[in-house]
């Protein structure tokens, strides 16, 4: 008999407990969220400007795909879009070695994918293997290159991994944000067969896709909508211990036109809207009470619009007319005069209807951690601009037209894309401003890819007005833009060595901040970069729009951030105060 040998009670107890540990009710490393606790239920509908092209985190590049994927995946370390700082996600803790090269992460235990399969370090190693594989050509690979060397990953034990950086990297933690951890049990076969780029496309069925995010795929209707449902295995709980997410369903409607998006929000088809233009914001504000929604100006974002001149070297022989104009563009006094003549306040008032800010450098006010607040916004003074031009050898003819030293009238064109109404408006304002200096400026609006081709490929343009939105507050992703030999140094591509001393200084500063660990020191270096940009004006920064969003009344935890993706970043914490959702 079992009890004949008088087995001690404690042995049985231990055996019982360890028996329990092997089952689903094992203690999990859940993350406790800090938002207001809400109640579960309801559905939320959000509009996307076009349908996602793929649900594959390895290949996805376009915004709608990334928006949807972010709701379905989990990453190791996440950047809180509201505070702009990193926080723990699937990695519950981490340590960096003294030399700044070895990064060890402890993973949460007992977590499962949305299809119930367990998550462990093998999934992490597999994911990074896929991202780093050169034959896959994943855009995520470029995020994992430090000075053109890839990060290496190794498994330490079931719940611990170590990343080895080829060089010390200041923003090491931030690298991992939004890098989805892929389910090895679903994707390994496709990867080994070389087909990983073709999986999880739009003909996917829900049972073949799984992730560690708050939602999982429920239904996809091509061209119309994509519906996600709550992931019952999500690893976050609120302060009261309730499981997140609160929402039963999250649906994405595809609404190709910006106006239709605003109208559908008003009608109640969607309950949250972001990326509102200033004009539509004004229209929607009028009906806030009657239609029971609330709009919000979340403050300055990270987008910056700038004017720059063609400073490329390779056009002397090919494009003689542009080369002649470059004589003016290369003179910093000319650029400074242009900057002084531009009425930035008018841009904010007329283009953004006041919901924006004038810029001193390429860092927008929304980037609170990095902006050089000591830099003053450039003043608007036509008189000073004229003085500068005079000192640079320009003069005016009897009609008031500006002429250079050789008597050639100053005429050039500003290239702008026709798909962005705001930038076109800015170009018209700049055109009128520069008329006061006697410059004859024409606005050449063109279809988007044609403008890109001119800027990046043929270099056949005089000046252009572009906009860019940083996806992260940290300056590191902008290295290819700021470095003189960077591939995105658009105003002067293909520089073998820095053309001017200040460009060399920028190069040095950027390289240094890349490897400096202390934030204060990095900020000092980057402040100096902004100063140089504001003085030497490789780009003339104009204005930055505020983030304009809206949501139906009664949506709890609605806290828009100024970084992508503005209103969806805390979708796992959103809940309906009254009885859930609509329809």
């Amino acid at each position, binding site marked *: 008999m079992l009890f004949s040998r008088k087995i001690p009670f404690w042995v049985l107890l231990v055996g019982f407990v360890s028996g329990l540990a092997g089952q689903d009710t094992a203690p999990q490393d859940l993350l406790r969220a800090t938002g207001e606790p809400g109640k579960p239920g309801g559905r939320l509908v959000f509009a996307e400007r076009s349908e996602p092209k793929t649900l594959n985190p390895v290949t996805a590049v376009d915004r709608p795909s990334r928006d949807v994927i972010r709701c379905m995946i989990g990453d190791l370390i996440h950047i809180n879009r509201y505070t702009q700082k990193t926080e723990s996600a699937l990695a519950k803790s981490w340590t960096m070695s003294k030399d700044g090269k070895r990064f060890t992460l402890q993973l949460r235990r007992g977590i499962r994918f949305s299809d119930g399969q367990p998550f462990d370090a093998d999934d992490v190693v597999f994911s990074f293997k896929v991202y780093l594989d050169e034959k896959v050509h994943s855009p995520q690979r470029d995020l994992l290159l430090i000075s053109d060397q890839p990060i290496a990953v190794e498994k330490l034990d079931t719940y611990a991994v170590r990343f080895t950086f080829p060089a010390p990297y200041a923003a090491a933690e931030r690298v991992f944000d939004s890098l989805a951890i892929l389910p090895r049990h679903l994707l390994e076969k496709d990867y080994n067969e070389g087909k990983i780029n073709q999986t999880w496309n739009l003909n996917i069925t829900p049972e073949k896709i799984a992730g560690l995010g708050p939602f999982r795929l429920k239904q996809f209707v091509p*061209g*119309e909508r994509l519906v996600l449902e709550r992931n019952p295995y999500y690893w976050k709980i609120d302060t009261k211990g309730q499981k997140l997410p609160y929402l039963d369903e999250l649906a994405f409607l595809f*609404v190709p036109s910006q*106006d239709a998006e605003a109208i559908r929000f008003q009608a109640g088809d969607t309950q949250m809207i972001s990326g509102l233009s200033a004009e539509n914001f004004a229209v929607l504000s009028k009906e806030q009470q009657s239609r029971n929604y609330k709009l919000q100006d979340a403050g300055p974002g990270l987008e910056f619009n700038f004017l720059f001149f063609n400073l490329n070297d390779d056009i002397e022989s090919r494009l003689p007319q542009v080369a002649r104009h470059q004589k003016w563009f290369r003179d910093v006094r000319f650029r400074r005069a242009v900057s002084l003549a531009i009425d930035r306040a008018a841009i904010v008032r007329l283009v953004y209807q006041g919901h924006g800010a004038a810029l001193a450098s390429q860092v927008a006010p929304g980037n609170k951690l990095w902006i050089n607040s000591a830099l003053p916004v450039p003043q608007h003074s036509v008189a000073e601009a004229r003085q500068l031009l005079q000192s640079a050898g320009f003069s005016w003819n009897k009609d008031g037209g500006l002429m250079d030293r050789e008597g050639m009238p100053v005429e050039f064109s500003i290239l702008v894309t026709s798909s962005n109404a705001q930038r076109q408006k800015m170009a018209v304002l700049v055109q009128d401003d520069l008329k006061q200096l006697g410059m004859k400026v024409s606005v050449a609006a063109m279809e988007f890819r*044609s403008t*890109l081709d001119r800027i990046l490929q043929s270099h056949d343009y005089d000046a252009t007005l572009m906009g860019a939105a940083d996806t992260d507050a940290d300056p590191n992703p902008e290295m290819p833009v700021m470095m003189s030999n960077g591939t995105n140094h658009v105003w002067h591509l293909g520089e073998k060595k820095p053309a001017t001393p200040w460009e060399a200084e920028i190069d040095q500063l950027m390289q240094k901040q890349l490897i400096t660990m202390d934030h204060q020191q990095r900020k000092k270096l980057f402040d100096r970069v902004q100063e140089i940009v504001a003085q030497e004006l490789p780009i003339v920064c104009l204005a930055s729009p505020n983030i304009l969003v809206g949501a139906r009344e009664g949506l709890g935890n609605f806290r828009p951030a100024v970084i992508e993706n503005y209103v969806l970043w805390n979708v796992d914490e959103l809940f309906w105060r009254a009885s859930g959702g609509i329809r």
Partner: protein
Amino acid sequence: MTRYLIRRLGHALLLLWGVATLLFILLQAAPGEFFTEMKLNPQISAETIAGLRTQYGLDQPLPVRYIRWMGSVAKGEFGYSFAYNIPVATLLWPRIRNTLMLTVPALIISWFLAVPLGVLAASRKGKWPDRVFSAGTSTLLALPDLLIALLFLLLALRSGIFPVGGMSSTAQEEGWWKSALDTIWHMALPVAALVVGSLPILLRHVRASMVEVLNSSYMRAAQGHGLFRNSLLYRYALRAAANPLISLFGLSLAGLLSVSLLVEVVMSWPGLGPLLIEAILSRDLFVVIAAVVFSTIFLVVGNLLADVLLYTFDPRIRMQ
């Protein structure tokens, strides 16, 4: 007749091939390609973009890509979409079906309205129904399609009677009958916008043809003989006036895939419109070429039908 049809089929295939080839060449001539936009993203390196271009065969010379594409057509895939990374045919079928759901009813309704109204205007030429139609068509012709669609959308928002876009409500799956009704309810405004857009042209042509016939001597003679007005109009005059209208009908059929693009975008209808416009702008080659090829098929069928009807209705035309 059979020989004629076979000859036309041969021409159709030739035309399809010509259209596809011309598009291939035109797309090459236009600056920029699909991956140009990626070059602007500082977080994607040039090597990755080069690798992706190789993967999609964009670094091959034009003739090689052309032949590979023809092979894909033979397989029924019509190439791969750069954006979606799935065969173009699977991408297009549901969209084409949705577009036809709008354009076919719109076609039928416009013609059913244009013919009687045009006949009315012609028979009462100079009097107030005619004036009203002239003023109305002049007004509608001045309004671009996009504006008309936007106005309808506003109407939907203000009145709350019609849905503000989309093809179905985001409710749960319902019974067959209910979801059919729901779809028709969503179709109402886009179809109305299309009808309003195409009616003026048809109306004008019907009226002009009828006026020409009504003024001719044999018509007046028939009237003098005492034939009743309605039978005069519809059995005799309309048949005589039908010639340009039949050609116009063929052209209407030809436009079944292309008239509704803008309306679909504004009304968020999941048809060919949003997909094609995005593909055209982003240079998603094979999607554009396949869509145009399908449009051409409609054109060919429309013209063939028109020609056959011409020969049938007009005994004066003899087939050569």
